[in-house]
């Protein structure tokens, strides 16, 4: 086996890990604040990619503008979904959230398939990020390096906001004890709308980053969300830093598996999930409740 192949696959693993990280970070924020395991995260990822494709094709809005605009639109749609649907089921057990968001995923996916069919549509790599670097032991496409950096910066920003700012302090308090936080005068319902919007906007941003790497298609989110849910289970529900670390490690592990035992590469995340569940049912970074 050549080092070219090894590093090539590790890079692919790192890229996938970056997407997993953004997806699972959004899921962790949403689960912490709303207690909802948002399967529809896959649909918001798909929408992020689709909106950037539509913005380019219909309005000529280029990649870097879409990188902000598309997650914003996705976030606003998410806020509307929270207001109209999710708000009604907070008092019900977790399964209902899973079922309802699964419905949102199927519905959204169905609409996009109806309008755009399932065929993938290419999104060009922005000219500023075309080409790559020859590192000697491997060729590193600029765009892929950009995806890793952008994802790390996004995750760090989200983590910093949650841990070090007054908004994050209020979000954490509302997560821990919503009733008391409201009794201090904090509008927790509005905060939940914002939290859901921000959580799905992270998926939307991941979708925009993914568009030039994978083809844009209505079903692109459905496959991803299954792996991301497994990662959330491995890392532990609701742990922010845990989700990021687990995502990147499992992305790399998948890449490594593609080199060492390609037949098992699609399975490796789930094998790890089974092992973790046997030893630590609350996940690697989770706490028993």
């Amino acid at each position, binding site marked *: 086996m050549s080092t070219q192949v090894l590093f090539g696959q590790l890079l692919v693993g790192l890229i996938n890990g970056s997407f997993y990280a953004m997806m699972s970070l959004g899921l962790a924020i949403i689960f912490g604040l709303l207690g909802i395991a948002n399967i529809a995260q896959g649909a918001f990822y798909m929408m992020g990619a689709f909106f950037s494709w539509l913005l380019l094709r219909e309005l000529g809005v280029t990649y870097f503008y879409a990188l902000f605009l598309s997650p914003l639109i996705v976030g606003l749609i998410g806020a509307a979904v929270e207001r109209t649907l999710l708000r009604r089921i907070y008092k019900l057990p977790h399964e209902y959230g899973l079922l309802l968001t699964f419905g949102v995923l199927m519905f959204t996916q169905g609409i996009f398939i109806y309008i755009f069919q399932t065929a993938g549509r290419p999104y060009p790599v922005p000219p500023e990020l075309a080409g790559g670097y020859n590192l000697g032991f491997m060729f590193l496409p600029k765009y892929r390096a950009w995806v890793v950096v952008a994802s790390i910066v996004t995750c760090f920003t989200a983590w910093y906001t949650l841990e070090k700012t007054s908004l994050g302090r209020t979000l954490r308090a509302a997560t821990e*004890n919503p009733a008391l936080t409201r009794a201090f*005068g904090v*509008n927790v319902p509005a905060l939940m709308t914002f939290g859901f919007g921000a959580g799905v906007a992270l998926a939307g941003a991941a979708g925009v980053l993914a568009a030039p790497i994978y083809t844009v298609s209505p079903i692109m989110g459905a496959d991803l969300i299954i792996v991301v849910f497994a990662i959330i289970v491995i890392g532990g529900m609701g742990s922010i830093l845990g989700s990021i670390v687990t995502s990147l490690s499992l992305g790399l592990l998948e890449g490594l598996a593609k080199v060492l035992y390609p037949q098992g590469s699609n399975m490796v995340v789930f094998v790890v999930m089974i092992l973790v569940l046997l030893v630590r049912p609350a996940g690697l970074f989770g706490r028993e409740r």
Partner: protein
Amino acid sequence: MTEPVIAIRDLHGFYGESHVLHGVNLEVSRGEVVTIIGRNGAGKTSTMRAIMGILEKRQGSIRICGNETIDWPSERIARLGMGYVPEERGIYASLDVMDNLMLPPKLAEGGMSLEDIWKLFPNLKERRRSQGTRLSGGEQQMLAFARVLRTGANIYLLDEPTEGLAPVIIQQIGHAIAAMKAMGHTMILVEQNFRFASRIADRHYVMEHGKIVDMIRRDEVTSRADQIKSYLGV
């Protein structure tokens, strides 16, 4: 004649199917300190939670500063200038002392400055980077007080502030409440420790089975001591 700051009429409250408040009536004037006393399970804490809007299923009338708040959400009630110190203290485990202190948004001008708070509760200053739940019971209670003193609230609901605390800490809490009274704040105090309550309160409401059954003024406390004892079941 000005309207009372808090006027409760025929308040009913429910936890799910269970009916816990059965027509509570009480009034508190501006600057007054009023206690609610009674045995465990009489509905004292539920009354506080109903006033704050935390007890969501409630009927009747609760007027605060002239506003009917019976169907208001909790955050809107809080913004009328309420400072709530819950029975369980409600210190956030995921926040350190400083973050717990800074969490409640400012409701009005005139709240205590950080400096004044450190003066009132010097222990808290030393422990400001400790995680909320690493504090002792007394420190948690001080933090619960300090947290609402910062916000500029002027109506305080204090639920069992001395419960489970050492005498020296109770004294410190007593100083804090006396200071708040001197500032002209209005207070409703739920208290098991009647000796403590009788020293600071203007009036005492007696609660039994989800209702107010009696009211005892400060100047009646000595003459009605036996009756109070029987109300408290001591």
